[in-house]
């Protein structure tokens, strides 16, 4: 689990071009959206692409994404349960 969390942090930084951040700057339990990382609706859509590309998980829409992208830990749990690759 911890390994997956670290992997996700690195993937998020790369996919969303968070160039000034390192994995250590992202709290696995903090909300990904709203305050904090300053992510927006396009980032949410890009995370949907990341889930499919990296883990073979297809999320239907942005609303489904909102549930999954609550925090890096929630994302990791979802990936563990649903990954197809």
């Amino acid at each position, binding site marked *: 689990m911890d390994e997956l969390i670290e992997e996700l942090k690195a993937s998020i930084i790369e996919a*969303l071009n968070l160039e000034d951040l390192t994995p250590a700057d992202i709290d696995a339990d903090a909300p990904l959206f709203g305050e904090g990382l300053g992510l927006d609706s396009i*980032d949410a*859509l*890009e995370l949907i*692409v990341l889930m499919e590309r990296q883990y073979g998980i297809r999320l239907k829409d*942005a609303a489904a994404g909102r549930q999954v992208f609550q925090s890096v830990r929630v994302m990791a749990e979802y990936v563990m349960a649903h990954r197809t690759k």
Partner: protein
Amino acid sequence: MENKMGHTRLVALAGAGIVTPLGSDTDGVYDALCAGRTALAPHAGPYGPDGPVVLSRLSRPDVEAAFAAAWPAAADGDSTFFEKMALVAVGQALRQAAATLTAQPERTLLILSSTKGNTALLRAGDGADDARLPLPESARRIAHIAGLDAMTPLVVSDACISGVAAQVLAQRLIATGYCDAAVVVGADEQSAFIINGFRAFKALADAPCRPFSADRTGLNPGEAAAAMVLQVTTPEALATNNGGEDGDKSGCGRLWLLAAGALTNDANHISGPSRTGEGSFRALTAVCPGGDDGTLAMLSLHGTATLYNDDMEAQAVHRAGLQNIPACSLKGTFGHTMGAAGVLETLLALHGAERGCVPPTQGFTTPGTPLPLRVAASVQPARPDGDVIKLMSGFGGCNGAVRWTRRPDVAVATTPTSLPALTAGRRVEIDSNGGVTIDGTPLTLTTRGRDMLTEIYRSRATAYPKFYKMDILCRLGFIAAELLTEGETAPADGTLRNDRAIVVCSHSGSIASDRQFCHTIVPDHFFPSPAVFVYTLPNIVTGEVAIRHRYVAETACYLLPQRDDTLMRRLAHTACAERTVSSVMALWLEAPDDTHFHASATLYHVDTH
């Protein structure tokens, strides 16, 4: 006020042409629209692996045949499908205008409105069609075939508002004497590129769309071309005309006049519309300063049937006090025809108004915006001789509105007669290899190329992490704007600035991001990226700068055959038509790839309005 009658150059509609899947004869298409027909249907491809797409698609053989008939001398040439559909519309419009067109071809300007032009030709890793990709190349070919290449053809590429922005530009250039007539043509061809971009944005509906309805789920892409011939006229000529058999006693003439136009920015987000309808509200207010004053026939709205657009538009209409004017969206009939939409939907609204009708909003079910609009699935009566408002909004936070009237006195009051004098202020040059100068003084920098922009961002700009998300064109424009505004006092938090316009000119526009997006939709690696797709609209850079600096005045993006400083200054000048504007940021931005770019930026100050 001084007497404007003597020197007002009014702008009249002299001819129109449309090419849609429901036909290419305006009367016939209008009847089909009112009869509830829709061009929307599922099509399998060639749009990628994710199954059929509901869209409106032009018949290729029909367009080819119409092109060969309209332009026989060009039939053996190598015009693309996109160029052919545009030329068919141009041919129709010119034929319709022939009887009344007095402007010389040397004084007639071609303005092409498109978002993605020949992008269907783009293939990942294949540079074969490179020369055909920049939109100015299409404009040049269209102008040449139509015999309109004496003046440099212009391209307006402002995402979804392009067709309205092109009308606004044409009005100002004719009214202020740059040209005597303009042929405004809007067109876009649907392709895997565009379809999968919208898919990545989760914006597509899997059934014919339902604008403003409670059960709306998204938009449908569409294909069309539409052209209008706009020509200078004078109040005196109209008075003579109206005194003849075509006039009537109400003071309304036969001719439609483009009375007013406004472009604004939300300064909110590059893809999401303002939640308060800020830009659309401002655009509506600019063309309807009197609100609902009993002179309006209808609002032809954008009405894409996405959740956020329609809510935003309803809010803007209410804020402008126009909620009791009958309104329509044509997206359920033609889909979102992108570069054509502003022109096509304006022409059909004018057609309806001539018949005292507001066209139906095909697909409308039950009201679904928090603030209600007067939208109906059937034809509504329109105020006789009332004016028509066309509203659009788009990615990059841009909004545009035009007002058409048949009452010369209205047009005389609102048509600009001259533009205020401009003085060039601070000037910034950025070159990927040559470095940066501000007012001729070089900046000391240790890097070149893409890294140089990051170095400037880190050393001279306020922290703005979105910089790292931007593509090369936006980074270049962002840095140019930072350097142009260095030393200015930032407005208080939340204060919007309506005193500064942004005009971006380029040749190859978003081509670097176009290529990058293409690489995300190759068959064995099919993961269309929304974050890349959004930057395939060249006007996004205007939105990025507007958001950073809270600029809500006019923003515009023009693509030119080559850099032309005199023409750029003229285009920057048109952005001063709005009286609130006291300075214009004029940016020439050319960034064909990550390692070759050039910016030439000037901050112009308006002397006095």
